[in-house]
């Protein structure tokens, strides 16, 4: 089915996949202000590319590519929109209940902390793996061979496991 390229459909797409945007921004930004900026930037760039979305790819492939490309390049401040000329709203995505408790929550925080410590492209690779993408899908998103991806995922997982082990000892 062909997708309508209007603002209403775009909002539906963002609503259905808001978790992807939030988790990517959370993996690439160390502080909340930057995270808000990055979320805005990702949604803005998704909107600009919405017209050009090629339906031969899955919608999530298109979203992952743009969100990760924007996040990896986020350090280039000059690439960003002139915020004075084009002010954007403050809060777009937020958690209505951020007070999770218990061991699992602290493990999630540790995992995010360890992911944030990884190099930019390693972050993208492990993020796509954790999101449950197949190696074929990861290959489409990253533009790497399946073999290369398998090797990298295994190496990064080892790094993460080592960090968890060090934490416990």
């Amino acid at each position, binding site marked *: 089915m062909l997708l309508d390229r209007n603002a209403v459909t775009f909002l539906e797409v963002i609503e259905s996949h808001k978790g992807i945007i939030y988790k990517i921004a959370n993996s690439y930004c160390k502080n909340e202000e930057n995270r808000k900026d990055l979320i805005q930037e990702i949604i803005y760039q998704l909107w600009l590319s919405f017209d050009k979305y*090629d339906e031969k790819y899955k919608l999530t492939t298109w979203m992952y590519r743009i969100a990760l490309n924007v996040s990896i390049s986020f350090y280039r401040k000059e690439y960003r929109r002139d915020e004075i000329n084009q002010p954007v709203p403050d809060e777009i995505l937020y958690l209505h209940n951020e007070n999770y408790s218990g061991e699992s929550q602290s493990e999630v925080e540790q995992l995010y902390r360890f992911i944030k410590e990884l190099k930019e492209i390693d972050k993208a690779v492990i993020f796509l793996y954790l999101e449950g993408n197949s190696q074929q899908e990861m290959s489409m998103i990253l533009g790497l061979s399946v073999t290369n991806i398998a090797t990298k995922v295994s190496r990064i997982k080892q790094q993460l496991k080592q960090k968890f082990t060090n934490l416990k000892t």
Partner: protein
Amino acid sequence: MEDNEILEIWKSYDKKLEDSLVLNRKNTEEITRLKVQSFLASMKPIKIFTILVGIIWVGFVDILIINLFNVANPIFLISAGIQVLLTKLAIGIYLYQLILLHQPDISEPIIATQEKLARLKSSTLWVARLLFLQLPVWTTFYWNVSMLENGNIWLYTFQIIVTASFTFLAIWLFYNIKTENRNKKWFRLIFNGKEWNPVIKSMELLSQVNEYRNG
């Protein structure tokens, strides 16, 4: 820790996130009304401004050389000629960057897009290399025949030491300003400052891309 445990931690958070994450539709809608500006468009004005200033400078020096060709001393003409040639090359790099600005498409695969973006940004380093290469001519352009004929040994010695040092420094910097040296102290000292951070970061990204490309 097993592989599955990391996946389980991620999935457990995923579920909670789904229940608690809220999209502010009104604010998102506002984004769709913003003036269209592509990912790299904001880089254009500064590049165009730099090219225009460069062209004015090159034009001025070229006119000077042409008009003074028969009367000026040859050392000035050679110095100005080298300076203007290197500036023309630097302008050429900025023009090349302007063309590259249209190439990256952020909906393309990540490794290829990041490589294009990082190459674009780190090519700014070529401009720095060319500008450093101009150093010696700033120590020679004021020489004239009378200085050469009537100077004393101290003047000659001083000039030779200064020009030789600047030439050595310029050539050394030209060869050594490269990605592999980005973490050296002298490199960080020269390229210290906020405006250079994106260039340094681009070099790091380029090395990550190369690592991935080489398996």
